C-alpha cells in the first residue's frame, strides 16, 4: 500500500471513530493564554499562573492530549524544570495554580508543555521573568484596622479617665456576687473549693479572664484559711495558676497555707481530664465548684457530677454551645461577656472598670450602626433601587486572602 492510501484509510478510520483519533494524528499544539501574575496581598512568595487548553482540546479529555505540564526556570537554573501536571480529564476550560515558596523580587520564567500520549510535545512561549512582590497592607482589612484603633482608643481613654478618679457605675452581675457566698459557705462546711480554669490554652482569652478571677478567689479563700483545688488541663496554664494562687495566699497574709499539690496538672486529653476531675469531685466532695473559662462538650459531665455531690456551682464561659448546659445544671451562670467583666467587677479597681465603660461605648456604636444600617437597607429595599447599598458595602468584612 502506498503512503497516501494508508493515510486515507487512517483518516477514514479517524472519521468513523470520532474526534479523538483524528486529533491524535495532528502534531501537538501548545496551551493558550499563559498568564503569570503577582499573587495579591501576600508576603511576596507566590505567583498566580493560569492558562487555557490547547486548541481542539475539550474539557473532559478524549482529544489526544495526555497532560499539560507547567514548567519553571528560576534564577540560577540552566533550563526549565517540571512543576506539576494538569489532566485534560478535568472538567475545566482553563487551568490555574499558585506557585508558592518563591522569593520576593527575583524573576521566574514559566512555560507550559502539552504532551500527547505518543510522547510528542509542544511548548508555549516562555512568559516572564515575573517576580513576586510583597505587599505592606491588607487593603481588605481597613474596616478591621478602624475598629481596632477606635476600640483601643476608647478603652485606653476610659482607663485614663478612671485613673483620674471619675467614678463609674457597674450593674449587678448575680453570678459574680454568688462567688463570695459560695466560697463562704464552702468554708463553713469545711470543704475545699474546686476551681477549673476552663480546659483551653491561654490562646483563648477566656482562660486569661478566668485566671484574673482565680487571683481574687484565691485571696478570698486564703483569708478564710480554706483549701482550693485547681486541676489543670493545659501545661502552660498550670504554672500560671500556681503563681496566681500562691500570690493570692501571699496577699491575704497566709503564704504558709498555700499547698502546692492542690494546684496540679492532670492531662491534656479532654475526656480523660473530665474523667479525672469527675472522680476528684466525687472523692474530695468540694463545697463549691467554680467552672470559669473555655469549655467544650465535657462541660455537662463536670456540671452534673458536681451537682450530684451537692456542691454550689457557679459556671461562666463564652462558649455559646456549652452555655445551655451550664444554665441548666449550675446554680449561677456567668454568660459570655460577663466573664470578661468579672475581674474588674470583683476587684473594683478603677483602671479595670474604665475598660468596661469603653466596651459599653463601643457596643453603643455597634447598636447605632445596626439601626442605621437596617434603616438604610429597608429604605433601599422598598425603593427598589437600593440607594443605600454602599452602607452595607462599607460595613462588609472581608476575610484574609483575595
Amino acid at each position, binding site marked *: 500500500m502506498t503512503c497516501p492510501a494508508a493515510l486515507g484509510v487512517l483518516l477514514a478510520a479517524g472519521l468513523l471513530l470520532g474526534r479523538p483519533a483524528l486529533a491524535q494524528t495532528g502534531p501537538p499544539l501548545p496551551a493558550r493564554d499563559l498568564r503569570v501574575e503577582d499573587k495579591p496581598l501576600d508576603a511576596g512568595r507566590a505567583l498566580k499562573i493560569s492558562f487555557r487548553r490547547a486548541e481542539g482540546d475539550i474539557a473532559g*479529555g478524549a482529544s489526544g492530549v495526555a497532560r499539560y505540564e507547567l514548567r519553571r526556570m528560576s534564577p540560577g537554573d540552566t533550563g526549565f524544570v517540571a512543576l506539576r501536571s494538569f*489532566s485534560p*480529564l478535568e*472538567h*475545566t476550560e482553563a487551568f490555574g495554580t499558585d506557585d508558592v515558596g518563591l522569593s520576593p523580587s527575583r524573576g521566574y520564567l514559566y512555560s507550559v508543555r502539552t504532551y500527547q500520549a505518543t510522547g510528542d510535545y509542544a511548548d508555549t512561549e516562555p512568559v516572564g521573568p515575573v517576580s513576586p512582590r510583597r505587599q505592606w497592607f491588607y487593603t481588605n482589612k481597613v474596616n478591621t484596622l478602624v475598629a481596632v484603633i477606635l476600640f483601643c482608643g476608647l478603652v485606653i481613654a476610659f482607663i485614663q479617665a478612671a485613673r483620674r478618679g471619675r467614678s463609674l457605675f457597674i450593674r449587678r452581675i448575680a453570678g459574680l456576687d454568688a462567688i463570695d457566698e459560695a466560697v463562704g459557705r464552702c468554708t463553713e462546711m469545711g470543704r475545699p473549693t474546686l476551681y477549673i480554669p476552663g480546659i483551653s490554652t491561654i490562646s483563648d482569652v477566656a482562660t486569661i479572664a478566668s485566671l484574673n478571677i482565680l487571683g481574687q478567689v484565691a485571696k478570698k479563700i486564703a483569708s478564710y484559711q480554706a483549701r482550693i483545688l485547681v486541676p489543670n488541663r493545659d501545661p502552660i496554664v498550670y504554672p500560671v495558676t500556681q503563681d496566681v494562687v500562691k500570690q493570692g495566699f501571699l496577699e491575704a497574709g497566709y503564704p504558709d497555707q498555700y499547698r502546692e499539690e492542690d494546684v496540679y496538672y492532670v492531662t491534656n486529653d479532654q475526656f480523660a481530664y473530665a474523667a479525672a476531675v469527675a472522680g476528684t469531685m466525687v472523692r474530695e466532695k468540694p463545697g463549691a465548684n467554680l467552672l470559669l473559662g473555655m469549655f467544650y462538650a465535657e462541660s455537662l459531665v463536670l456540671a452534673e457530677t458536681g451537682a*450530684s455531690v451537692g456542691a454550689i456551682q457557679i459556671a461562666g464561659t463564652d462558649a455559646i454551645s456549652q452555655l445551655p448546659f451550664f444554665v441548666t445544671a449550675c446554680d449561677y451562670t456567668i454568660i459570655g461577656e460577663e466573664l470578661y467583666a468579672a475581674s474588674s467587677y470583683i476587684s473594683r479597681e478603677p483602671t479595670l472598670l474604665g475598660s468596661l465603660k469603653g466596651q459599653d461605648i463601643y457596643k453603643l456604636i455597634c447598636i447605632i450602626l445596626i439601626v442605621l444600617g437596617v434603616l438604610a437597607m429597608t429604605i433601599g429595599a422598598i425603593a427598589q433601587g437600593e440607594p443605600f447599598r454602599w452602607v452595607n458595602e462599607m460595613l462588609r468584612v472581608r476575610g484574609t486572602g483575595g
Partner: protein
Amino acid sequence: MDFDRLFQSMLRLDRRIVYSLIFIAVTFPFYIAWPPFNVEVSKEVRSTYDIIEAIPPNGQPLLISIDYDPASAAELSPMLVAALRHAFSRDIRVLVISLQTTGQGAGIATQIVPAVAAEYGKKQNVDWAFLGFQPNPIVAMMAMGEDMRRAFPRDYFDTRYEEIPLLAGVQNYSQIPAVLTLASTAVGESWAIYPGSRYGLTVLAGLTAVYVADIQPFYQSGQIRGIIGGLKGAAEYEKLLERPGDGTAGMRSQKVVHYTMIIFIVLGNIAYLWTRRRRIA
C-alpha cells in the same frame, strides 16, 4: 392518695432512676420494633436513592467511600448498610474505598461490606471489591481522577488491581456512575470540590447530622447531588428500601428518649407546682 408525699419524693428522685430509664429507652427499640416511626422522605434522600436506583445492573460499579471512624459509626453505618442493600438487591456492583486518615474506616469496611454482600450471595472482586484506604484524601481523590490504579495498586487483601475482574473496565472517574461518601469531616466537602467539580463525578453524601448544615450549600449549587443526613436520613433511606434497619431502630430510640425526657420534665413540673402551691397556701 397522698399527693404531697408522692410529689415530694418525685422531686427528690434518685438520678440513677433517670439514667436507667434513659438506658432502657435507648436500648429497647433495637430489640422490639416499637414505637412505630414514620418518616417523611426528604428530597435530598430521595435524589440519592434515585441516582443509585438508576445505575445499570451488572455494569460499572457504584463507588462507596467510607470516610468516617468508629466515633460516627452509629449515624453513618446504617447508611452504609442501606446503600449496600440497595445496590446488591438491584445487582449493582459496588467498589469500596476508605479515605479516613487513621485507617479505622478500613476496619469498618471489612466488618460491614462482606457481611451485607453475603446476605445477597454477592462474590468478592466480581460483584464488589474493597481497595483499602489512603491516608491523604485529596491526593488520593486527584490520583483516582487520572488512574485508579495509581491510588490503589493493590486492594486491601493484597490482590493486584489487574487481577480483580470488577475493575477490568474501570480506569478513572469516567467509568464511575456515582460516588457515595460517608463522612463526618470535611472529606465530604473535598469530594464535591475535587472529583465533583473538576472531574464531573456525581457525588452523593451521607453525613452526620451536625455536619449536614455545613454542606447544604454544595447541594444547592448542584456539586452534591444527594444527601443522607444523620440517623434520620438513614431511616428515610430504609423507608425507601422498605427494609427497616439500624437507622429506623436508631430513630425509634431517639423518639423514645426524647419523649421520656419530656415526660420527666412534665412530671417534674407538676410535682414542683403542686408542692409550691402547698407551701404558699
